[in-house]
């Protein structure tokens, strides 16, 4: 099979959680791919499976969750088939992750320098003590005063500083891919901008790819090369950022963009009608059809395939396939 992304190619990824209420089909065939050094934004509503996707790529889905199907080809290896031990050698070395809550993502009783050192020590197989010069370089790189921060405990740092530390920890081992799961949502707006700028600058310097998970369209527009829109555990649209904002094809993407406030925008903001579907009993066919203004009969019966409508613009919607067919017929 030809890979769509040279660095990461996720195809038909299905993840379920076995809960008391029933099986939650959190991911239902997610498609996602990235090239080296690329920035991909993954957007969607709360509960659409953005975070689960990122955890699945890191193979961090824990009981009662399970990856049921699909391939995650990262750097030529299928991560779904790797042993836990081999996976552990990839985590933190070839790909790493930063989380939403920077302050609770650091061990509160260990010094910050030690925690960064731990990651470096593991990838280089040296003692933690010997990593300190490198830890200091990393702290300087993320814009902190190394002398002051290296021996601090997390509670002595502000939220923004903690997130800088987390970024330093994530990039300390020069990974090929950094997954950032809403890295700015717990921070206030001015710090958000600083953190994004920092991520941008470091990714440029180190050449790593970034998968940015967010629900903030503004962040995506500013930061990402490509965008993947997810809805209820499915990939619904994938395109370059410029193209997606200019010409969104999927009705859901259109709805999302209509709900984003912008300076100078005078028309009324429109919300997408209805609510996110219950993933224990998801709607049949296309999971968006109950809320879709253009729903057709086929949408209720079959899941639309994720196909390339125009070069590098993928959509999972019968609307477009349908249109093409109509044109061909007429």
């Amino acid at each position: 099979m030809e890979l769509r992304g040279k660095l990461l190619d996720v195809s038909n990824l299905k993840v379920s959680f076995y809960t008391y209420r029933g099986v939650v089909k959190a991911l239902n065939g997610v498609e996602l791919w990235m090239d080296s050094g690329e920035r991909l934004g993954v957007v969607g509503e709360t509960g659409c499976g953005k975070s689960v996707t990122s955890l699945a790529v890191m193979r961090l889905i824990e009981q009662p969750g399970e990856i049921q199907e699909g391939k995650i080809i990262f750097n030529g290896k299928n991560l779904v088939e790797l042993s836990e031990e081999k996976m552990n050698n990839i985590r933190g070395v070839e790909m790493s992750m930063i989380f939403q809550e920077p302050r609770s993502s650091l061990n509160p009783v260990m010094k910050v320098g030690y925690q960064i050192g731990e990651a470096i020590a593991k990838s280089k197989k040296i003692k933690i003590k010997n990593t300190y010069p490198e830890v200091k370089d990393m702290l300087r790189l993320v814009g902190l005063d190394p002398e002051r921060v290296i021996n601090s405990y997390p509670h002595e740092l502000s939220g923004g500083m903690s997130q800088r530390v987390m970024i330093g920890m994530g990039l300390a081992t020069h990974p090929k891919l950094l997954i950032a799961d809403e890295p700015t949502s717990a921070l206030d707006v001015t710090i958000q901008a600083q953190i994004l700028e920092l991520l941008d600058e470091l990714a440029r310097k180190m050449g790593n790819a970034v998968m940015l998970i967010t629900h903030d369209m503004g962040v995506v527009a500013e930061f990402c090369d490509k965008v993947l829109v997810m809805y209820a555990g499915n990939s619904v649209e994938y395109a370059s950022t410029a193209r997606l904002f200019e010409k969104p094809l999927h009705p859901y993407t259109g709805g999302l963009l209509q709900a984003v406030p912008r300076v100078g925008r005078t028309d009324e903001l429109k919300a997408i009608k209805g609510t996110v579907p219950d993933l224990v009993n998801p709607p049949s066919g296309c999971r968006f059809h109950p809320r879709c203004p253009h729903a057709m009969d086929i949408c209720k019966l079959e899941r639309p395939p994720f196909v390339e409508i125009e070069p590098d613009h993928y959509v999972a919607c019968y609307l477009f396939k349908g249109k093409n067919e109509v044109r061909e017929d007429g």
Partner: protein
Amino acid sequence: MEKTVKVSKPFMDDLKHTVFLWRKSRLTMIGSAIILIFLLMAAFAPLIAPYDPVHQDLQIKLQAPSWQHLFGTDQFGRDIFSRVIIGSRIALWIIFLVSVISGSIGIIVGVTAGYFGGIVDEVLMRITDMFLAFPSLVLAMAFAAMLGPNLTNTIIAISVVTWTTYARLSRAEAIKVKSQPYIEAIRAAGGGNLRIMFLHVLPMCISPVLVQLTLRMGTIILTAASLGFLGLGVQPPTPEWGAMVSDGRNYLIDQWWISTFPGIFIAFVVLGFNLLGDGIRDMLDPRLRR
């Protein structure tokens, strides 16, 4: 640029507040004083004790308390005061080793069960329940009888029955800690199970176990003394307090001092540990702190 907040002052305030609470509670102070005396007694035992605790002199047997023999002498003419003083070392040694052994078994079992969960948790906790199903003294007696009565086996027997409390405590703590976001962050950074368990989860589980250990020290002395009294603990002529109380049983009517003095010491030290333990618990309880 953001600034580092200095925290040394709140820490000092916290310490001052703790001292203030300690001084406000008279019972805690009494408990601390008793334990301090007990520790000093054990530390300087050979200097304080006027006679050799195991030296027998039948010519002076069963003498009532006098200025020569402060607490009198027993049926073999041994000086009871010296024996009681030296006995504090035995008691302290037992407390120390039992705390270390049972504390570490308990915390390792508990953290393993809590961290891995599932079948591991089920197996380890059911084993713990099996130990808890027996009255602790009866179980300790059974172990002591099986292993043979001496100091080492007494320590093993008591450790084997006391670790369960710490296992349950640290399991609960481990379950709480393992769901914290930073544990997931460490996993994402490639930390293996053993590393996370021992370096990141276990240290967070130690403090409640330490508090519980101080609370249980009185019980440890009592159990050791009970085993000694029943003849299943430390063997004569070693001056263990429980065994000494047992020695004087036959002479209780006429030579009351043989059993009474070691008994008083057991009572006081246990009281001291309990008062101190209660005090520590109150001082560490955030709801009672202010």
